[in-house]
Every structure is written in C-alpha cells, then in structure tokens.
C-alpha cells in the first residue's frame, strides 16, 4: 500500500462527485480546444503565407481593381521572379449558403507561384488548354461529389450572368495547412466575356501576386512596385502575403480577441470547478489529515495526497476533454459551410495547451486546500466534524 494508491482511492471516494468534476473539466477542455481551433483557423491564412510572395493591390481598397497592364511593369523589377494575378469572382453555386472561394487566375503562372496546390500533370495540361475549365480543391470535389468532366454552373453576382465551368482538374493541398476548398478558372475566360458584355471592366485584375527571389528584399521590392504607379489612376499598395492576410484578420480582431479571452475564461472555470471539489474534499477530510499528522506523516505527505488527488482528477478531466474534442471538431467542421474555415484542424499546440492548462489548474486548485490542511492544528483537526 503506497501513498499513490491512497491518492487513487481518495479521488474515487465520492464517485459521483469525482465523475461530475471530471466531466466538468472535460467539457471545459473541449470548449477550450474548440475555441482555440477556431482562433487557429482564423489565422490559418497567415500561417500558410509564404515569405517570398508579395501582394500588390489597389492602394485605396482591395475591392478596386488594377490594370492588367501593370503586370509587365512589375515583372521587370529586379528580384521579381514571377508575377501572377487573380480576381475574386464569387457567384452563387447551388445556393447562397454554399460558400467557398471562386477566383479567376492565370493558369500559366498561378501554380508556379503557389506550388502548394498540387495538380496531376495530365489534368493540368487539359485545364490549361480549355478556357472554360476550372480546378477545384480536393475538399470541394468531395463535398459536392465533383468529378473530372462535371459542369459547375454558377450564377454571377460581381460578374453578372450565368457561367458554366467544366471541372478539368482537382488539386491536392500539399499539407494540412493548405486550403483545399478553392475553385480556380481562367482569368482570360472572365476577361473575354467582360470585353463583350461590360467593356469598362475588361482588363481588370483584382490583385497581383509577385514571387520574389530573395524574401529579405521584400520591403525594397514593395517600395519599387508602389513607386512605379505613384500618381497613376490606380496607385498600388504592396506588402508581404503575411501582412496582407493580417490586414484581413485585423478587421475581425475584436471577435478573435473575444474568443481568446473566452478560451482563458474557460481555464478559470475549470479552476473553479476543481477548486470547489478539492476544497469540499479537504474540508471533509480535515480530521483524517489530523490523524495523518498524529501518526507522524509530514506536511510533504499531505501536500502529495491533496495535490496528487487534484492532479489526478484534472488529468482524467483533461484527457476526457481532449478525447471529446476530436469528434466535436469533426462535427463542427461537417456542419459548417466548407469555405468559412478552409483549414480547421486540432493543432498539436492546442492539445498541449489544453492538457497543460488542465494539469496546471489541478495543481493550482489544490493550493488552498493544502494551505488549509497544513495550517490546521492537530487538536483542532481531530475535533473537526466534517
């Protein structure tokens, strides 16, 4: 019989109370895991950004286009390897609730700038040849059961009219940090139709993506690009892809901050749940602790007993919470429109943070009961009626 065994037995002494405490911690850890996953998903674009990519957009606002003619001028700047460009198309596929990124791109250069989108060579060849073709991400293909040769009819909103795209390629994200929910088609297809139907919008590019050879020169090249178009009708703002993504997050920073705060409030809740249990347990065992002291057990033994029990409960609670987090996140992802959070994974750092938080709370929650047990005189403890 060892102290550890006694710790186990004490933890299971009030089975219902211990079970409810473990469940409470588990639910809190699960909520913490989900919130942190949402926050992480929010920042996924930033994490996935490459250091060697710059984004050039209209200086006034992202929603205003840039002339296609800028492309060649940007390409001439020393240090620029490839220039590609995109337009946000959007439109309605099936219904308005089916949200995922639908964009026009330059098929010749896009995949050289974004090597993390992996397209089989034969599919790539067909995609490049057919102007009304499109590439869809693996996740989108799976969600809508799209196969090569299928037609995707889209009702245009930013670019009005009915559009039909033939799926000619399905890209695979290189790793789990890459968005697998995009649909890309030929910018030329869009531009030609604009020439016919809305000539004023022909030759418009949403933004340029500039691949540079040396990331350390990103600031210098950005300045050079913007200087090229200074005082033009469409001045530019060039920044790293990371900064570009961060500017999107900045718009929703209050929500992210609130979620961050909430996730740490949850840690506080765990502490209160466990602290309450430990205080009740220590109060009920005041006489037992006095008996331990009477028998010659030291303060260290009592610390081990109380902290061990608290740690054990938090360990099981944290473990249960993590186990429950996986199905919850899968369920959350399944119910959420695919494009909202293209990358929605339970990151190892979230698991570590949740586990460490639960265990730390286990230790902290035992401090008051320990202080009480150590501070109570033996004679007072023996008189205690719990």
């Amino acid at each position, binding site marked *: *019989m*060892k*102290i550890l065994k*006694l710790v186990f*037995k*004490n933890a299971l*002494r009030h089975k219902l109370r211990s079970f409810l405490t473990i469940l409470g911690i588990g639910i809190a850890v699960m909520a913490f895991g989900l919130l942190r996953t949402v926050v992480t998903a929010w920042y996924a674009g930033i994490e996935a950004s490459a250091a060697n990519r710059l984004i050039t957009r209209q200086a006034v606002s992202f929603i205003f286009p840039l002339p296609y003619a800028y492309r060649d001028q940007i390409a001439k700047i020393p240090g620029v390897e490839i220039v590609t460009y995109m337009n946000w198309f959007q439109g309605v596929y099936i219904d308005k609730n089916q949200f995922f990124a639908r964009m026009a791109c330059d098929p010749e250069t896009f995949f050289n700038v974004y090597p993390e989108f992996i397209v089989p060579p034969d599919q790539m060849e067909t995609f490049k040849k057919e102007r009304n073709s499109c590439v869809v991400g693996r996740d989108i293909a799976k969600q809508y059961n799209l196969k090569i040769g299928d037609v995707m009819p889209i009702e245009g909103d930013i670019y009005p009219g009915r559009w039909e795209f033939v799926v000619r390629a399905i890209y695979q994200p290189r790793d789990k940090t890459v968005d697998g929910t995009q649909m890309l088609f030929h910018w030329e297809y869009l531009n030609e139709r604009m020439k016919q139907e809305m000539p004023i919008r022909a030759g418009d590019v949403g933004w340029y993506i500039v691949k540079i050879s040396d990331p350390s020169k990103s600031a210098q090249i950005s300045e050079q690009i913007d200087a090229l178009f200074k005082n033009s009708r469409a001045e530019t703002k060039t920044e790293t892809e990371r900064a570009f993504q961060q500017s999107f997050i900045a718009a929703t920073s209050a929500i992210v901050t609130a979620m961050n705060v909430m996730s740490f409030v949850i840690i506080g809740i765990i502490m209160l749940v466990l602290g309450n249990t430990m205080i009740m347990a220590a109060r009920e065992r005041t*006489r*037992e602790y006095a*008996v331990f*002291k*009477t*028998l*010659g*057990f*030291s303060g260290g033994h009592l610390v081990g007993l109380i902290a061990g029990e608290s740690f054990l409960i938090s360990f099981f609670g944290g473990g249960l919470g993590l186990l429950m987090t996986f199905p919850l996140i899968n369920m959350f992802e399944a119910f959420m429109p695919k494009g909202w959070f293209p990358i929605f994974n339970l990151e190892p750092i979230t698991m570590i943070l949740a586990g460490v938080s639960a265990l730390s709370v286990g230790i902290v929650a035992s401090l008051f009961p320990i202080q009480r047990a150590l501070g109570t*005189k*033996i*004679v007072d403890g*023996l008189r205690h009626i719990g």
Partner: protein
Amino acid sequence: MPSIIQVQDVSKAYRRDSFDIPVLNNISLEIPEGEFLALMGPSGSGKTTLLNLIAGIDRPNKGTIVVGGTNIASLNESHLAKWRSTHVGFVFQFYNLLPVLTAFENVELPLLLTSLSKKDRKQHVEAVLTVVGLKDRMNHYPKQLSGGQEQRVAIARAIATDPTILVADEPTGDLDKSSADEILTLLERLNKEFKKTIVMVTHDPRAAEKAHTIRHLDKGELK
C-alpha cells in the same frame, strides 16, 4: 519503576477570540514505565489537553514534558512528528480509521514511515491483527466492521510500530457495553503481556477500574 513520562509545572491556555482560557494550571505528573493510568474528570477539566500534551500533538505554554528521556516541548514540528511516529500510539474515541483503506492497510499506515520492507510490514500487520483478534477480517473495510472491531483495528494501528507509550482518548466512549469490555480487556492485556505504558482518558468508572492508577483532573488541576 523509573518514570517514562515526566510532566513538570505544565500550564496550557487556549485563546478564543481575544480571551485566554486557562485549561491546565501548573500540572506535574510522573508516570512509571509499564503503568496503566486513567485520567478522569468532568468535561472541560483538561483531561484530553493533558493527554494531547503528553502525546506531542499540542504544546504547553509553560513547563516541560519529558517522555522516554526526550523533552518533547523543545522539539520542532518535523522532529516532533518523527518522534510521534516511533514513540506514541494513539487510540481515539471515534477510531479515526481511513474509510477507503482495509483493516490491513489502516494498520500498515504508520509502518509506511519506517524503513521496513513490504514483506516485514506484512508480517508486522498480521502479527498485531492477530493480537487484536482480527486477522481474519484484515481485508475488510471499516464500514464492514462493527464499532468494537473498528476500535480493535485502531488499537492494532496504534501498536504496530511498537511505541513507547499508548495514549487512548475515551476509547470506549462510542461503544456498547460488550464491545467496551472487549476493548478494555485488550488494553489490559497490552499492558500486562506486552508491558505497554498506557495513559487513558475516560469518563467511564468501569473503564477506569481496569487501570492501575486513577488521577482526577478538575478545573485544570490534578487531584
């Protein structure tokens, strides 16, 4: 017989709010080795306080207490805890067994503080449970035992480390007559056969009859 317990000019007062409540006034007492002493007196007379001081679980405000040659009033908390673990066996009125441990494990508890191996601990525990007549119940939990049996387990726990003195605070106070007789017979046997020095606090004159010596306390003074 030489004195194993020497209490000299001991005073003790408790502080309640801003008041000092005197409990013991200049008590002096010598208890020879192998003695079975009963302390009697009305409630609040200071019996349990004196027992606690002798057992080293409380400290006097004044005076010295020497047990087995050690002035326990001069020991710090950690030394006093160590001293208690080897020199004092406690028997409480309400047994104070741990409900989550079996009889065996409860008796083994004080032995965990010794350097005995698991095998030796097992031998010790079985031996003392045999002395109290509960070897066959060693795997039972306290709630599966009667009050008398629980108190016998508590006595087994008290003698497991072969302490210098055995202190018992109202050991029969929570028992029926038959169980109380069993416990008193057991204490008598421990005193006679195993030469244990026993200091027992009791209200019960029948219990006190088993002791060699009866001392009365009243209003903090020894009569």
